[in-house]
């Protein structure tokens, strides 16, 4: 979505159904809040209170997923409960590993079984590397970064970590996914059957969609988590 300026942001009074009509990629966000379809005329506020969801976070995430250059202001960030953000990010990690990544992996795997060449074996190996790296990154966040933030908000200032150290980790992982796209688009030799041709397109489309999704995930980390944590850190340092 690139309708940057003429937008009206999603808010508590937006009907959930309208938000989906406006941006269907929100369908990938819903399972992370354990929400299913069948909204009727429910507003987002009502939906959140029915499901016991932190409404501010839900709206923030819908807006980040819907508007490419949406950056929450300092004022908006002040109302954000960082614990709920971390909970969401955790859910996202699960969703990515258990669903999106395993789906791509399974498709590549079945191509490997069908194809007479070793091409998909080579690509599989590469994708497995990617998968390991991204899972390592998730684990690093869950075991180092998030607990650090937890300690911070509980009033402790742990010495051994600083949010500056975080975020540099992303680049190489993104590069790998990009490389995978280039390889499939440009260098995977001609297909053997119409079946393979179509399946190949579908795999590539999955990868593009996953990449879009994960770029929003990164944006939540960069534009929400990092600024909030920076502020807490600075408060400590100024004491």
């Amino acid at each position, binding site marked *: 979505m690139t309708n940057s300026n003429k937008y009206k942001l999603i808010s508590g009074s937006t009907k959930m159904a309208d938000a989906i009509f406006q941006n269907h990629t929100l369908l990938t966000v819903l399972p992370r809040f354990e929400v299913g379809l069948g909204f009727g005329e429910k507003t987002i506020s009502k939906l959140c209170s029915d499901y016991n969801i932190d409404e501010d976070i839900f709206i923030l995430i819908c807006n980040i997923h819907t508007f490419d250059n949406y*950056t929450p202001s300092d004022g908006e960030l002040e109302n954000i409960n960082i614990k709920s953000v971390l909970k969401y990010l955790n859910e996202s990690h699960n969703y990515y590993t258990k669903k999106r990544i395993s789906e791509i992996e399974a498709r590549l795997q079945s191509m490997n079984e069908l194809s007479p060449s070793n091409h998909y074996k080579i690509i599989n190996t590469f994708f497995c590397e990617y998968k390991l790296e991204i899972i390592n990154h998730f684990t690093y966040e869950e075991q180092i970064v998030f607990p650090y933030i937890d300690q911070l908000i509980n009033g402790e200032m742990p010495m051994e970590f600083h949010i500056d150290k975080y975020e540099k980790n992303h680049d190489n992982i993104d*590069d790998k996914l990009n490389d995978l796209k280039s*390889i499939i688009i*440009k260098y995977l030799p001609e297909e053997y059957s119409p079946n393979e041709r179509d399946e190949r397109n579908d795999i590539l489309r999955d990868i593009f969609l996953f990449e879009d999704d994960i770029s929003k995930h990164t944006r939540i980390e960069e534009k929400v988590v990092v600024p909030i944590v920076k502020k807490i850190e600075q408060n400590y340092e100024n004491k």
Partner: protein
Amino acid sequence: MKTSKHKVVIIEQSELLIKGLEQILSDSSIFTIDSVGSELSNYINSNIDIVIINPNIISQNKRTKIRELYPSAKIIAMLYNYVDRDSIKQFDDVIEINNNSFKIIQVLESSIKKDIKKDNQADMEELSDREKEILVAVAKGLMNKEIANLHNISVHTVMSHRKNISRKTRIRTVSGLLVYALLNNLIEENEVLK
């Protein structure tokens, strides 16, 4: 597509000006606004192409910091009151409050054009034989220094080959290049399976 758009950051305090710039950039298909803010962010953004900033927001000695925070970006000053000449020299280009939208887009485009020209030229070509040799060495996991020794060239030349290889293939990681080499039969599978 979205990924090929140039990412712009606006650092300015006037909401009026921000909205105006957003409008102008959204009408152009080659720029996308990554974020807007009223002050310098505290962390490094290496994927930004252009930073539009009001020079008065940051003090003189902090200006070099912009380059550190946005290492690959062109820094454009947005002027609407007096700024001394020496300060302006620190920026890659300047847009002014009385510029029309055409002029503003023109300035932004030309600030990145030099890089684009280089890109396009390289993209037209296939990998040269030399580049393929270097690619194979990289894919096998050799370090720049080792490759330089092996082919009797400088480390600098190796790096410039690698840059061109990545630009032409759109593959950046070593393991990605290994996949390229395997799929194109530049390396045999048993050479790398250990």
